[in-house]
């Protein structure tokens, strides 16, 4: 509990934490609305047959996840950048306990941020769709509720992933580069790979699988919870690797 309190003080006492949390909400909402307006511009020609009013509300997650991952990474890369890590590890030489405390703070911050982000993005997008006379999602529909929960969980996982990459790279820019590659570049490029490899990447790549969890119209890929589970397992393994690295390497 002591370490948790300590990590909470560290996180709340730097402005970057709050800036990243606030920009996650704002940027996600804005990008989702841009997605909706892009749809409005040409829907009369052809509303896609698999139009999913829930999933479109989370277009902004593509960008918001980067900010939330950076928030997670900062919890430890900030310490390496300043050299504070030596003080932290002197006071708390049990490295696993330090990492677990940071994970707890990351999950807490990300959960609050993700709930607000998902609610705001969903609300704004449905309002925009409704105003344009398009079909909207029913927030009482179990499938919609599940999508909202999955989007929230996905965002929390990206923050944990950010912390894990931050622990492995010890650098904010290094962690961000990996997050961008994992969350944006590979999903964009890998499906272009030939044959089974491309199919595999398009289905099972962790962030792609995770993102498919908040669609309500089956996209012919993984069932929602399976997708989220793939992302969760990937996050777990990365976190275990981060733990091993923190324990073995000199500080």
């Amino acid at each position: 509990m002591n370490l948790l309190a300590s990590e909470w003080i560290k996180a709340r006492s730097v402005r970057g934490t709050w800036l990243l949390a606030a920009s996650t909400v704002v940027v996600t909402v804005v990008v989702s609305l841009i997605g909706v307006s892009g749809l409005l511009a040409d829907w009369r020609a052809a509303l896609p047959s698999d139009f999913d009013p829930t999933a479109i509300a989370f277009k902004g997650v593509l960008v918001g996840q980067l900010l939330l991952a950076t928030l997670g990474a900062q919890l430890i890369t900030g310490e390496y950048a300043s050299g504070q890590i030596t003080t932290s590890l002197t006071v708390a030489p049990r490295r696993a306990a330090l990492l677990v405390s940071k994970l707890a703070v990351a999950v807490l911050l990300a959960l609050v941020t993700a709930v607000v982000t998902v609610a705001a993005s969903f609300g704004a997008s449905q309002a925009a769709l409704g105003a344009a006379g398009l079909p909207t999602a029913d927030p009482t529909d179990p499938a919609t509720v599940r999508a909202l929960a999955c989007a929230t969980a996905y965002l929390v996982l990206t923050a944990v992933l950010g912390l894990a990459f931050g622990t492995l790279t010890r650098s904010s820019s290094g962690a961000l580069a990996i997050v961008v590659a994992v969350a944006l570049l590979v999903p964009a490029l890998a499906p272009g790979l030939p044959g089974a490899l491309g199919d595999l990447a398009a289905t099972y790549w962790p962030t792609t699988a995770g993102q498919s969890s908040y669609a309500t119209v089956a996209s012919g890929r993984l069932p929602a919870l399976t997708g989220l589970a793939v992302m969760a397992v990937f996050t777990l393994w990365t976190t275990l690797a981060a733990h091993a690295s923190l324990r073995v390497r000199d500080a």
Partner: protein
Amino acid sequence: MPPSSPAVLQAHALTKRYRRAVAVDGLTFEVRPGRVTGFLGPNGAGKSTTLRMFLGLDRPTSGAATVGGLRLAETPHPAQVVGAMLDARALHPRRTARDHLAAVAAAGGMPRGRVAEALARVGLAEAAHRPAGEFSLGMKQRLGIATALIGDPGVVIFDEPLNGLDPEGIRWARTLMRDLAAEGRTVLFSSHLMGEMELTADHLVVIHRGHLLADQPLAEFIADRTTEHVRTRTPDRARLHVALSRAGLHARDDGTGALVVTGATTDDVGHVAATASVELSELTAVRDSLEDAFLAMTSTRKDAA
């Protein structure tokens, strides 16, 4: 207030090898409570690496570095056992002094009240709400020392604590280290400057290229490594020279017109002069500079290596 658990630092055959170099090579020494121990060596001698191994930050390749017989990670309340400042600049620039200490205090299981106490002890009460990035080096140093002392530890370790301080800051840090030792704590601080040791340390551990060169009281180190001479001037050099030779003392001209007598005290020379009725215009005890002795010591080792 006396420390809760007096403890000693022990290095036993401590070795740290990197892929291409050996930073610390079979160091064995002990640091005892109640005195200030200076950890001396030129830059790159392996001082910081040794201190980091005591703190469990770096893992020894072989051997052990323990605090009170245990590795730091095995001690039940590390913050109450050892406090350290390795780099005064290692502070998040945007975090206030108070929040920084509050985070450390919480991690060490200290009551929140310690934060204000620690800030007051180092004279930073007024600056508590300011971000550490705005601090001068001297203020960061004080905050670093407050951080090290927040758990009221029995052992304190400072890496180059006097580096870059102004004279007032140096005097403050010196007094603090002496006070901490007087309270019965184990105090170990490193420096690459012999001059910083002379006025602060009671005991010296000297290393060079990862090897132990000396582990002895400062006074003994000075007596062993430097020689005392007597410098004297007289209007009648020839007569004094003869009188000294007769008394079995060797005198030589130092090139400035003075005679330098080795292996004698001012009493001896004064007595010889008085007996021979030679007038003296100067009679001074002179000691080699300790800095020179230290440099000579480390440079001969370099040649041997």
